[in-house]
């Protein structure tokens, strides 16, 4: 496992917060996912060894929480809310719009590697749906037009980066 020294340091530090090592499974998973974008099999086994557990114990946690990803995602992670309020306000159309923009399907990495779109449960912004989260930022009232604008912005940033 190739983790940055800072991550390793934070991992060692966070373990000390708990009376038993096992309790540090969740924070460790978050730290690893933050750095690597997803939780690989290798990461599961590394965390298990680190916390003196068996890999199955960590694997159970990874599969229990939808926030942990077992596959790599695109550079940006777009989460479109699919729950009732947002759905009534056009969440499905929003999601399709993003898919069209990036020529991809939910769950997959877009061909340019830029994004992964996911249709997720309630993002806790039900009054201002359709709600969308791009990485850690919440976007409200994302109709198709706003979805196109957000997509354009992502593409522009990508172009700027590759220049």
């Amino acid at each position: 496992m190739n983790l940055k020294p800072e991550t390793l340091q934070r991992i060692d530090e966070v373990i000390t917060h708990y009376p038993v090592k096992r309790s540090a499974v969740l924070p460790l998973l978050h730290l690893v996912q933050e750095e690597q974008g997803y939780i690989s099999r290798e990461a599961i086994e590394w965390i298990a060894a680190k916390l003196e557990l068996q890999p199955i114990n960590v694997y159970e946690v990874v599969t229990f929480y939808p926030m942990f990803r077992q596959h790599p995602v695109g550079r940006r992670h777009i989460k479109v809310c699919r729950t009732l309020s947002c759905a009534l306000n056009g969440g499905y159309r929003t999601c399709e719009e993003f898919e069209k923009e990036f020529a991809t399907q939910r769950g997959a990495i877009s061909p340019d590697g830029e994004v992964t779109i996911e249709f997720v449960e309630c993002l806790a912004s039900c009054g201002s749906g359709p709600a969308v989260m791009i990485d850690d930022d919440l976007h409200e009232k994302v109709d198709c037009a706003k979805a196109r604008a957000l997509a354009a912005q992502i593409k522009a940033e990508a172009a700027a980066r590759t220049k």
Partner: protein
Amino acid sequence: MTQPAQTDLITVTIDGREIAVPKGTNMIEAARLLGIDIPHYCYHPKLSVAGNCRMCLVEMGMLAFDPATKQPVMDPASGKQKVNWMPKPVIACFTNAAPGLHIRTNTPLVRECREGVMEFLLINHPLDCPICDQAGECKLQEQATAYGRGYSRFIEQKNVKPKRTLLGPRVMLDDERCVLCSRCIRFSKEVAKDDVLGFVDRGSYSTLTCYPGRRLENNYSLNTVDICPVGALTSVDFRFKMRVWFLKQTPSIDTESSVGVNTTVWSREGVIYRITPRRNDAVNDTWMPDSGRELYKQVRAENRLTAALAAGQSATLDAALAAAAELLKSAASAVAVVGSGRSSVDEQFLTRKLAAALKAPAWIVGRAGEGDGILLSTDRNPNTRGALVTGLIKALPGPQLGELAAAIDAGKVTTVLAVNEDLAAAGLTAAQLAKVRVIYLGTHANATSAAAQVVLPALTVFEKSGAFINQQFRLQKFVTAVPGPAGVSDDLATLARLLVAVGGPKLGETATTLWPALAAEIPALASVSFAGIPDEGLPLDSKPWAGLRFGEGASLHFQPAAAT
């Protein structure tokens, strides 16, 4: 077993009946003592308590005391102390005996709880009992009969889960039948020390899985099949072979090692279908190794000896016995006897009698293996202690028959009586075997039977009755599960008749008739009768052998003498 001291007993009241139980007893066990069944799935007496199935919900109450005066509050109607019943049910498996604890298991609330749990368990259950191996010994089936609605209110699509996952070489998983009790997970972790099973995903998608890339292949994996309350885990070997209600159960002993795991042999019309552990809290709890479950296959093995041979020709047993006696008598005092640590106590006793009648030295063959610290010990003979107790041997056996080999080379031994031991496997060379005349009593063909002048066929442990003495000096009996092959007489009869033929005393030819002689002659077995050996075995006094250095290490319920 010593009775717990009176002070350790706590009186609890279950459905209005009082019972005194040791501290720490949970309510499922306490109710069991009263003959009250509290249905449960996840609870298992030999595993940690998980409390996740909720089938065991009961009503709980405590004796009422006035908070201010700490005086008991009396119920004027009954004149007894009042009970404060809690409004919500509790799980019996995680409720331990406490002074004044009251439990109700037969109220409408409890019944409703059970029905509710059953309804949820059944919504995603495939209801494929007609093709399920667990049918007949399935807790879900039993509980559905008692607490099922009889019809389903579930009109949605049932979940689909993997139906045929090989968790390992011997265990098959049907995830749709799993009730997520986690017994198999806890067993693997706590007893087999092989933590590879777990639940992935969530809610009704929860799925029992082995960690990707790992397998449930430890030598205890089949115990998960035994404790799975439903048909989710089944044995690859037993699967689809036989309906369990057709099978006869016979108590037996695992012959793999000196642990003496208690087993049940399941057979029908003379054919064995499976072997499962039999609970003995002093020996093997409710577990047994996978390797011991395969042993019934030796009964119908290709190389099974089914007829007597004399001088290479098939012969009647009488003729073979006469030929054997002739050989033994004509060899004067150049006979040696090789007995076996796999023979029963009774057979070893007769073997010793034979050696005495022939004035022959006797050995048994030591059989060392690796101990796993659970239920397989380093002594792979089930009855080394029996050979000591019966006086067949005085010292612990070595793995090789070195002394015998030397005696043969020196020409001091010209005839060998081998009881259930392959002399070649025990270190005699082909040349040494060729130098002597061999009388072989055994179950299967091998180099010794091939070299023998007389071959007397014998029975496997499943076809005869007898007793072994395990590493704890516990005398444990096994009884006939299936008849032996046609024409093969009982080993005790064969040995007893050979004994008479060589001029020895006439002794009993069955375990029951022989035991009086054992009891009379062997101090450790004085006052023991075969019928009187209890199912859980009989601990013998091991002091006379305290000076011997037995090789076994610690295992479940066993500490070597040196370490204590």
